[in-house]
């Protein structure tokens, strides 16, 4: 009986938390379409989420693309299918690894930064100060970050896709003996518009998830340094899990059609 009660409490607690996150996310999305937009905050967010994420995204994609080529080449060699390396790298990077890796890197970098910043603002009463200055924290803090992530993470994914493919190209042509021209032609010819569209759609969804989780957990942080730490940890965990779950759902929706 006690186990059932504990299970019930856990289920109710989880459902309650999911409900609160959903309402927050819905409210954030609705507020995107309502003025005013704090342009300064938005531009700062564009730079912080997009421009400053480029190095980590680029390096992640570069190394992943290179490693992917080696794996596929080794695996393909078991049944004389080394020739399909460019095609499989392209589809693997664009459909899956590019968006997921960029999403996870954004979750690690951007979600953590947003959650820590907003949680610190809450702990130091800066959120209350915003309210007393007739400024809605949802509009001032959440909307610019969510909108910036929505717009810029697809671009990061596109950049990650290209760099990942180039990482594979460098390894394939540099050490595995592939013809450079043929490698690029096979890559370009094999990709379809839907592959690229799915990559960008996933990027937009993952960007929103990363920003919303950072803002939600930041604004709901408990008091003190421990509260800030816990909010940051929870935000990154939630963003990472939701990005992987959303990837599954989006893949099923886009490619099972």
């Amino acid at each position, binding site marked *: 009986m006690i186990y059932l009660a504990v299970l019930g409490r856990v289920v109710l607690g989880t459902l309650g938390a999911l409900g609160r996150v959903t309402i927050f996310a819905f409210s954030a999305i609705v507020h995107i379409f309502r003025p005013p937009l704090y342009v300064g905050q938005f531009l700062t967010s564009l730079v912080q989420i997009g421009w400053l994420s480029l190095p980590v995204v680029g390096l992640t994609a570069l190394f992943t693309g290179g490693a992917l080529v080696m794996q596929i080449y080794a695996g393909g060699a078991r049944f004389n299918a080394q020739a399909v390396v460019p095609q499989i790298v392209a589809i693997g990077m664009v459909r899956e690894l590019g968006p997921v890796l960029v999403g996870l890197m954004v979750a690690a970098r951007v979600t953590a930064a947003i959650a820590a910043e907003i949680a610190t603002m809450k702990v*130091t009463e*800066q959120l*209350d*100060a915003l309210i*007393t200055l007739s400024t809605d924290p949802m509009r001032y803090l959440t909307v610019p970050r969510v909108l910036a992530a929505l717009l810029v993470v697809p671009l990061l994914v596109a950049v990650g896709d290209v760099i990942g493919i180039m990482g594979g190209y460098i390894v394939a042509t540099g050490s595995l003996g592939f013809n450079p021209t043929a490698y690029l032609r096979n890559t370009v010819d094999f990709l379809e518009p839907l592959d690229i569209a799915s990559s960008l759609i996933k990027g937009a969804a993952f960007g929103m998830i990363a920003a919303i989780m950072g803002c939600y957990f930041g604004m709901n942080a408990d008091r003190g340094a421990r509260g800030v730490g816990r909010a940051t940890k929870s935000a990154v965990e939630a963003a990472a899990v939701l990005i992987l779950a959303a990837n599954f759902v989006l893949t099923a929706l886009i490619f099972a059609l």
Partner: protein
Amino acid sequence: MITLTDIHKTFDGKPILRGVNLTLPQGQSTVVIGASGSGKSVLMRSILGLVTPDSGTITHQDAPLNPQAFLNDFGMLFQGAALFDSLPIWQNVAFRLLRQMPKPRARAIALQKLARVGLDADVADRLPATLSGGMQKRAGLARAIATDPSVIFFDEPTTGLDPIMARTINTLIRDIVSETNATTLTITHDMTTVHSIADQVALLDKGKIRWHGTPAQMATATDDKLQAFLFSGS
């Protein structure tokens, strides 16, 4: 005038405010004193709409208080100043002004207010983290009075300051309040603040107003809780 009538608030089954009745007269300085956990912050947050009372009414100028409208003519000095880390001092001070007027004019007013609280113009472009606690409090005070509001709240204005800086802040608050004729509410443990700025004093104890009077009446009051508080706070 702001009037609180029979305000109750409970958190997690624990009553924090238990029927608070308090009036903040127009143009007067009301100071609420009380031990930690007595409900002072919840009381202030209830007026601001940051906490919704379970029951009771709050009126402003004899009409139910609408937090959004109320906050348009309001300033507040927070306990830790609560300056926005990412903005330079002048933009903190001019935060509300920047939505109402061109940037150069807002900056000019911000510099005026900084000067009023004794801060030089050279701090205007610095970030809050580069200022001392006392300077941050002054900047917070400049932000609170930036739009010349008719209502100003002070949350523990001298907490964390050395005695000299605390006296300076008290003097600034007293002078600014008398210049602007604002209705003010101050929450504090600091009896020096009470004697420096209060027109009327209320002792909040276990969620209720236990004693209410002027600073002069406080010295002769026989309420044991008040005397205990005065003794421990002096």
